[in-house]
Every structure is written in C-alpha cells, then in structure tokens.
C-alpha cells in the first residue's frame, strides 16, 4: 500500500487514489493524426512504456479532491521520487543510480 502525496491534499493512503496510465502522452492534433499511419496512431493509442526503473505515470485522487497529477515511481522499489501537477514537465531523475 503506497503512501502518495497528492499535490493538493498531502500524503494519503493508496486506496484513495486511482491509477491512470503513463504520463506525458500528448494527443496528436487532427492535422497531425490525419497524416499518421495506422502504426503511428497505434503508438499513441496502445503502446505504453513498462520500464524496470523510474516510470512517469498519472494518478487521480479519486476519493479526495478528484484532481489528476503526475507521479515518478520506481517500479522495482516502489519509491515515489516526485509528484507534480498536470502540465508540468517531467523532472530530471537520475535513473542510473537506482
């Protein structure tokens, strides 16, 4: 059971949150997707990273403020290395040392 620090509410138990998916996936504009092959569109639509190490992902505080936010989590140690608001860029995290 993780302890997740919601950027708006503070540290709360994992059961208050819902997991979304990988963070920082930008939806292509219509102008872009009109030009995309099916394979390229599938990259956006289906393909997700599954790293052994630091993973940037988004969570929602379902049973709290209902706000979405981003989390940098180590998938092996489950350390939560950063929590940051939607729209903020992914922080630099030295993934090698982990």
């Amino acid at each position: 059971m993780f302890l997740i620090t919601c950027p708006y509410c503070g540290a709360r138990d994992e059961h208050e949150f819902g997991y979304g998916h990988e963070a920082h996936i930008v939806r292509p504009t219509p102008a872009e997707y009109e030009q995309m092959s099916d394979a390229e569109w599938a990259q956006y639509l289906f393909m997700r990273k599954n790293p052994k190490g630091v993973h940037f992902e988004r969570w929602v505080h379902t049973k709290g403020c209902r706000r979405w936010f981003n989390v940098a989590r180590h998938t092996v140690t489950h350390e939560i290395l950063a929590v940051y608001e939607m729209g903020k860029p992914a922080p630099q995290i030295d993934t090698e040392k982990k």
Partner: protein
Amino acid sequence: MTAQKNRLGQGGRIDRTKPLRFTFDGKIYYGYQGDTLASALLANGVTLVGRSFKYHRPRGILSAGAEEPNALIQLGLGDRTEPNLRATQIELYDGLVAESQNRWPSLTTDFGAANSVIQKFIPSGFYYKTFMWPAKAWMFYEKFIRQAAGLGKGPTEQDPDRYDKLYASCDLLIIGAGPSGLATALAAGRTGARVILVDEQQELGGSLLSERTAEIDGKAAADWVAAAVAELTAMPDVTLLSRTVAWAYYDHNSVSLMERVTDHLGPVAGANQPRQRLWRVRAKEVILATGAIERPLVYSDNDRPGCMLASAARTYANRYGSMRGQRAVIMTNNDGAYRTALDLTDAGVTVFAVVDLRSNPQGELVKAARAKGIEIIAGHAITGVKGKLAVTGVDVMPLTADGKGVTSASRHIHCDLVLSSGGWQPTVHLHSQTRAKVVWSDDIQAFVPGDKLPGQNNRSIGGAHGVFRLADCLAEGHAAGSEGAAKLGFGGQSGQAPTVSDEPAEEALLPVWIVPSDKPVGQGGKHFVDYQNDVTAADVMLAHREGYRSVEHLKRYTTMGMATDQGKTSNVNALAIMAGLRNVEIPSVGTTTFRPPYTPVTLGTFSGIDKGDFLDPIRKTAMHQWHEQHGAVFECVGQWHRPYYYPKPGESMHDAVNREVKAARTGVTIVDATTLGKIDIQGPDAAWFLNMVYTNAWTKLEPGRCRYGLMLGEDGMVFDDGVTSRISENHFHMTTTTGGAPRVMSWLEEWHQCEWPDKKVYFTSVTEQWSVMALNGPLSRKLLEELTTDIPLDDDSFPFMSFKDGHLAGVPVRIFRISFTGELAFEVNCKPSHALHIWRALMQAGEKYDITPYGTEAMHVLRAEKGFIIVGQETDGTITPYDLGMGWIMAKSKTDFLGRRSLTREDTKRPDRKHLVGLLTDNPNEVLLEGGQIVAHVKDKPPMDMIGHVTSSYYSPNCNRSIALALVKNGRNRMGETVYLPYEGKVIPARITEPKFFDLEGKRING
C-alpha cells in the same frame, strides 16, 4: 479433580487462584488463567497432541510459540470451529473445547498411520510420479488424494462473530515487545513520539517472561517488564497492543496487524466486542524487534512426542510451571541450551545429561551446569529416540573425530523429554516481506537482515538481526528508540539505556546440520527436517539425487516449508543439508523469500463489517417505497435497486411484462428512470467540450433542445450514450447510462484536467439531485395536460427532443420530450423531495386511463422492439458506431472528436466486421438465449466457426413473436440469410433481419 500432575507448586506467570476447565479430544482437564493450551496440556502430562500430515506419525509439542509445526488444533464447535490453530498460541479460557487433527478414529489409534508402514514407498514426489499416467485417471485419483490430504476442517456454517478494521498512523511502530522492543518503546516514548508497540503474545515482555535469573537495572526481569509496561501505559502517545500479530509489511511502511480482541475470552464472553480487528498502520519508522526462533537439531526419530526445543522447555518450566517431574536429556551445539539445563534443574526437572556435539565446551554456562552436577557428555550425539506414543529414552554414542559419524559404544538413557538446540534463526520474515534481502552470517550460522530497501524506513534490532545477548538487545533497543525519535524531530530526553550485570559469555556454536546415527540417513530412524510436511533429511537427499537442488525446486518437490508454519523451524536446516550435499556455501542454495502472512490470518478480519447489508451501498430512488407497496419485483442495476416488473396477483413474470409492454403502446405507462446518470455541464467552453466527447455536432443546438449522443473511446469503440440538453448558451444537462454514470464523469474530468485544462468548463454529478419518471404511450400527453397549467404540450409548442420548465401537480418540474420506447413520451424531472408526490398524482389522475407502471424488463423489450441499443449489452468495447449501423450520428463537419482517427484504421473500417442485426426465429415462440453463439454451418459437434452472438432477446407481445438483436460477422450483408444457434443439444434456425421490429416508419413518436 483439578490435579495437574506436571504442574509446579509455585512460580510462573499463571494465576493458580483461577482454574479453568477445558476438554481435549473429549476428555476434561484443568489449567490456569495465563496458560496456553500447550502449557496446560503439558501440565496435565499430555504429550501426544497430533498426527503428522503424511505419515500420521504421533507428534507432541515442539515449541512454545508461533513456529509450532506439530500441535495443530481444531478449536471450538459448530459455526465457530477453527482448524489448524497452534496450541502454543491458544490462550486457555474456561470451557475451551479442543480436538486433535488428522487422525481417525483417535489419536492413539489412527488408521492413517498405515502410511507410516508403507512410508518407504511414498517418498517425496510420490504423487507426482505415480498419478501422472494415464493422464485421464487423475480425475479419478484426485478425489481420494484430496480426501486424505488437509489438516483440520473448516466450519460449514456462517461465522457468527463480528470483525473490525482500523487505520492508524504513528511515528514509530515497534514490532515485538521483548527486551529490544520494550527498550525502544521506552526511549522513544519518553521523547513524546507517537509509538505503537505490538506483540503477538498475551503479555508484553517476550523472552523476558521466560527468564528465571536475569536482572535488568537491578530488578528481576519480570519486575523490569512490569515497570516498563507501567511507564509506557502512562504515556498518552504510546499505544500498547498485546495479542496482536504484525503479519504483513507492505510498501511505504504500511504494516498490517491482526488483533485478537476477544479470542482469549472464549466464544460468548466477548459478544459485545469484535472478535478480531485488522489494523492498517502507516509508520514513519518501523522497528523490527521480532526476536529469533530456535532451530531443532536434525537427529534420528527427532519427532517422537516428548522431543522439544530446549528454549521451549525453559519457557514451559519458568513461565508456566508445567514441567514438574519430567526427566530430560538435552542435545546442543551451542551454549544457550545450558540455560535450559540450569533453569529446569532449578524448577525440579531432572536433567540427566547435556549431550554436546562440540568436543570440548568450556563456556561460562557450561561450567555453571557442571557445577550444578549436571552430566555433560561432550563430543557425543543422540543417535536414536525410543518410544512411539511418548519418548521413553535415548541412545547416545560418541562422535568420530570428524563429527560425521559415530563409534560403536552406545549408552541408553531413560527419559521422557528430549530437548535440542541447533542455534537460533532471527525472525527476518517482515524484513524479507519488504523485498529486502537476507544475508548469511557465519558467526551465528543463520540468515540476518541485509540492507533495507529505499522507501522502506525500518531497522531490525536485537534477536531479529542476530544479536542475542540481553545487554546488547537492550542497548540496541534504546538506541533505536532515541535515534528514531530524534530523526523525526522529537528532542525530548530518552533516559538511560537499561543495563544488565554479569551476563555470562558464550562460546561459538558448532554447525551440525544432520546429527549422525549408527545407520546411514534414511535407513534407520527418520531425521525430520520439516515436521509439518513430514520432510526428512532423506527426502532432501532424494531431491538432490533427482536434480531438485535450488531452494525453489527443493521446496516444491518435497513440500518443505509449506503449510501453516511456512518452515519456521525447518527452512535453514533444509538449506544447509542441501548445501552440504552440493558442497557449496549455504546462501548459494538460495534463501526463502517470505511473503505475508507471518502466521495465518482469519478471513473475517479482511471483510470486517463489510458483509451482508454493509457489503455495498444500496441506492434507492425517491419512489422506492411506492414500488415496494405496489408489489414490484426488484433487480440490482449496479448499486441501484430498480423495479423489474410489477406482477398483479396470479401473474407470472411473462404475463406481467407482456401486460406492461402492451400498455405502453396502447395507453399510458410510467417508469422510474431516476437512476440515469446526470451531469451538469457549465462554462463558455461547454459546447466545445461536448463536440470533443460526442461524435455528433453540438455547437448549433439551440437552448431548450435535446440531442442524442454517442461517446467513443479514443480507440473508436462505443463507450456510452445518452441525451444531452442545452439549458442555456453555456449550460448543458447530460444524461448517461445508469451503470456508466461514474465512468463518464471520470472520463470528462480526465480529458479536461489532463488534455484540455485551458478550457473553461465544469462538471457536476447531479444524478441524485433529479428524480425522473417517464410517461410513455399515446395517452401520456392527455394525462399530463390535466396536471399542468403552465406547460403547453402540443407538438408545435413542445416538439420532440425539447424540454420545458414549469409546474406539474403544483410543484416545479422540467419535462423532456424524449423517448426510449418510440412512443409519445415525456420525462418528468423534479426535486427528489417532490418525486413521490408527482408520481402519486400521476397515478391518481391516470387511473381512468388505466395507467400502468412498468419495470426494467418491459423497458428493455420496448426499446428492443425499436432496435434501440443499450451500451454494454449491444456493445462490449469492440463495437464502433458503424458496426451498430449508426453512421448517421457521425458528424462529417467536425475536424476532431475522441475516437475519430481510430475509425479510419484499417481494422475498424473493414466492411465485414460484426454488425448489429435482428434475428427472427422460424418458430415465433422460441426465445433465443442471450449470449447464444451463432454459426453459419452446423457441424456434428464443436468446434464450429462462430460468427457472432445474441445480444438481446425477448418475447414481444406487440409483434406477437420473439425478437432478438445480435452481432453477426458481415451481418448487414447477410440480410435474409438463415443462421443457426446450437445449444443444449438442439439447433435453432433464425433469419437475419434489420435490427428493428415495430413501427418501422417511426410514426408513433407523435402519438
């Protein structure tokens, strides 16, 4: 009558003024308040307490704690009976009823013991090898094997007890209240830190409760414990939890505890309290002071009743006074067992000899034992144990110079207790559960905690990390408490560390993993490694010979380390024996990864109060009471309870539904549609947002008008549908499917917050703010007219797909002219507090029109007659709008909406995908099975090529025949074709039609 033949006259922590009556296998015994079932049985001279799992060997009590592999008990009767409890952990109460397990007809005469006779023929892997061919016969064998397997019996009735759950947080969670844990709690508690101290036993104190001579701060150990507990009890921010096992250590310092709140009071006394409580504790730091577990030595016939761990005998003598008159022989490879020799002698137990596997032990404790006149037989081994149902004596032989064998001169010693000590294994379970590693320590020949994982803030102290001297444990505990508190910002004084004087120094232990006998291992007596699973040293050798040499293979091949004790006394011995066979270091065989739970946890604590009516909230509409009073049969739709149909006296479901369905097309009907999801959407970008989430266009919808919309996932598949109305320029009222309401709400929020945060739009769930009742049928307008003065209802003023605000039956309403039946229909929305009033007014005024309430089944039939889809029934997440034949709802003018690009993927634009079609059976009375598989060509037997399935199927009284909707491969290009539905031994032919069966021109919508 209350005589306890092995009970000492004085001493120990039992209350002799409170005798307790209990039964074991139907026989009445007495013990005292403070006893465990195990100590009470021993006080009564009961040594045979169980039969082993596989060979049904007679077994006695091995330990005095959670590690007990033998003394498994079926406790209690009827609906409260519980199997596989350890007698060493059951607190005695008056009237306790205990039964031994795995024997028939009785413990002393057990037919299953025949297995013991043929044991040569059922070694490890016997079942794997024997029952694997012929493959089909496993179905036959399994029945018998399953019957022979298993230990106790689960209750067959519902659990009558209450359970509770609790969340807590603290600065320091200290697990284990022995010397280390108590010292930690004192040091941290004094600083003002919030401390939770837990211990699985009934009293705090751990090993100190079994001490006879040790002194701390000048006090007897027991007195020091009492003073420490008193000081801790007085601290407002310290919580002491006895009878509480920390059974799981999860991520980020989340630890699960099980508190046995009333188990010790028996089944009745605690009825006003929960039986057990699950704690989920989040701690800033966890101190693992879980102590260590003594390892038995692996010697020939080491499982005879009366063979016990040396430390356990010391506990039974010192803490429970239940070893009187026993005659013991002790075998050891370390100095610690001499404490048992000394204490037992003081407690009046005859210790005939200490057989020391070391050739020349000279430690201080050894000398003290010698000074007390205890015979020390160094460089010898116990090579055999006599007695079947109870120990009667041992054979002792000198070890050869290399210690690997014995020489001939054998000496027999009569005794009824054989105590052994093979050293101590730190209880690293919780450390290991954090997924941190354990490492091998040559000094103590045991696994100790390795580095902790980042993100898990904990510290193992005392016995749990291989520090066994009392003075060191106290010092480590004090340091952990004061440093832990200081790190968390508590600056208060933590006081002085407790001190111990004159603690005897101990010599190193000698690792001996198999005690040699006069016959090779496997040929004479049995050298048990894992008592609970009947795994012997010979079995480990067999596994080695057959190539199962890693710990994972060894475990699965021999079942070593499985079942209720999870190898607490056996894992290290087995690893060490395997290492010896492979001639490698012990850690290279591998280590066990411990997983929760540390000891078994009852399922009741997981459910807590979440059972029966409390399992899930029940949602009822404002008209629920009316439905109940009028005989509605209810069905569950998510958490909602909705009327399914309203049978009149004597009507079957079929009759009632037919009547309701016909009424909707001939008169006027009313249905409670409150459960529809409703979302209020406001903001200058509301129309823009709807354009993105629906496939059709919303910008030009005029205020006062409604529109049906289809929502797609970004993969182009239908996700939800519903009617959304424009209240004003920047204000919309969205409806969703009943089950989809929370999902749609989350969907809108996610896209808004994550993808389009700049858009000014706000979503509010208003499902429970509006009650809804829909009037359907040609007479619905007439009925409404009677109850409103300010809402014009004619087609021109109030056209289809629009809404009006006004009053009905004297209260404010918003009426939508929308229809899920194809009939003239009005959906009345109002405050929930007005809903029952309006419903009653409509029923009263409608009486002359024979107004008919209908339920969800009629609603489904009516919409199916018109071919209206239900998302989740006609769709399953793989269906596009085009598959449904709903190309008309796809806005050509819009450049973007969710799912748009996916609809042009090669796979989604295929012309031969599964399409929604109608199915008409040849026999009009044959109603197809929903979910039934459809084939184009029938074969003699499966497999057949399936081309689709039935999604909805009903009898339609308005069509006078059965109707069905189905998804069929290339269905729209198969119109008129006959397909087949084989099931339950028959084949039903059906013809593919348009998915619409009634009022094909759609004329009825205007009444």
